[in-house]
């Protein structure tokens, strides 16, 4: 079965600093999702990557999927207190059932980010 490992497990940065979170998969990634979770809240979708070498950006957050499609990184530029939370990567996996092909997400354990003003 596929497993995702995130690093670091937790991170404390000063406001304005850049940071990177990594997500490594035990198998090839066919769809890699990044979500953010604040305490007591659900997951907020950030970005989805599918192609090797793909890079997407939204505001100050950039996500990349490596050429071999086994590792992804999430980079935050000039961090702000609003970036604080838990960042989760999820791998889309396809499997067969009686209804045909379908998909589900396998999640990593998450990275807790704190941003100090």
């Amino acid at each position: 079965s596929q497993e995702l490992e995130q690093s670091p497990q937790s991170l404390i940065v000063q406001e304005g600093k850049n940071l990177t979170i990594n997500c490594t998969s035990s198998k090839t990634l066919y769809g890699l999702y990044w979500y953010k979770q604040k305490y007591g809240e659900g997951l907020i979708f950030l970005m989805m990557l599918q192609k090797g070498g793909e890079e997407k950006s939204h505001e100050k957050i950039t996500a990349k999927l490596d050429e071999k499609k086994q590792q992804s990184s999430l980079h935050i530029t000039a961090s702000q207190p609003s970036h604080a939370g838990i960042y989760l990567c999820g791998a889309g996996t396809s499997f067969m059932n009686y209804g045909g092909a379908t998909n589900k997400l396998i999640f990593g354990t998450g990275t807790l980010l704190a941003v100090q003003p």
Partner: protein
Amino acid sequence: EAGVAQSPRYKIIEKRQSVAFWCNPISGHATLYWYQQILGQGPKLLIQFQNNGVVDDSQLPKDRFSAERLKGVDSTLKIQPAKLEDSAVYLCASSRRTSGVGETQYFGPGTRLLVL
């Protein structure tokens, strides 16, 4: 567009009691998912519905957990009887369809369950 709705937001019960959670997905989304997230871990899929049929329930502890999605819209997840290790956040998510790895899942705010 309204997001995924869940209730209650918090629930405290004693072990061996029963509890039920409710989820209303985004309008028009055919696929609905229930996840369990234990503190310090990523969410784990419990059950997946497409319309009102079960697609995957391989990780659902069927001796105590049950779920249904009548009429292919909202869904309930029940635990009976609850154990201490069921303390977790229960997340509901939905997507437009289920086939392919490119379908984004949108999550509700979750129900935080504490079993004493």
